[in-house]
């Protein structure tokens, strides 16, 4: 299951969907909006996507993961729009027969998501400034790659 939504992510419903009698393990990852980053204070994040491509990439990531681990069920939901502190920006859930597989697959999915899925976040700093987070670019947000909603 893949979803891009403007609504609150119902991660419990997501987890129920991936649970299975064929699985002994479920790993759920949530990215949440963190207030402080390197001493700077965020008040909100704005997420936007290139939706058609993002969905295609989510599908590719799930296929890739299914090729590497014996995944019973997997799901990814990403939220867009204005997110406040503590809000869940992304949920990745995966079920597998054994726990090592679920941890590895879950971590792989979120790592790859952050590399290839066309979604971007914009910081709304407490000082009133805003800033797109584009890891590796030159104008001061290079260090943002591991920031915020992780």
């Amino acid at each position, binding site marked *: 299951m893949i979803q891009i939504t403007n609504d609150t992510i119902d991660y419990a419903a997501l987890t129920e969907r991936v649970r299975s009698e064929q699985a002994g393990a479920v790993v759920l990852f949530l*990215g949440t909006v963190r207030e402080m980053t390197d001493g700077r204070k965020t008040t909100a994040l704005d*997420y*936007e*996507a*290139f939706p*058609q*491509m*993002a969905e*295609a*990439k989510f599908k590719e990531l799930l296929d890739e993961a299914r090729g590497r681990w014996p995944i019973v069920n997997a799901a990814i939901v*990403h939220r867009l729009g204005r997110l406040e502190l503590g809000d869940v*920006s*992304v949920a990745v859930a995966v079920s597998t027969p054994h726990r090592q597989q679920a941890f590895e697959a879950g971590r792989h999915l*979120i790592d790859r*998501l*952050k*590399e*290839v*899925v*066309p*979604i*971007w*976040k*914009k910081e709304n700093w407490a000082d009133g400034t805003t800033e*797109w*987070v*584009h*890891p*590796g*670019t*030159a*104008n001061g947000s290079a260090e*943002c*790659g591991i920031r915020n*909603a*992780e």
Partner: protein
Amino acid sequence: MKITVQLFARARDLAGAEHVELDVPAPGRVADLKRSLASRFPQVSPLVPSLLVAVGTDYANDQTQLSPDVAVACFPPVSGG
């Protein structure tokens, strides 16, 4: 040839438009498109070295061939999650 390009995130904000029409010498490649974007929108040019280009819903590289009928998108490095 004319290529319509969709921009996202800071690339869009700097260009001031979500869709831009660029002139690319035919037969054009992605590298030509980037040059055309940078010359048309100098304010975007600092982003160009790290700019990602998608043709349809797949990532393209500098050598990818373009045609007027494909959907092209340009955007800076992603930061979802």
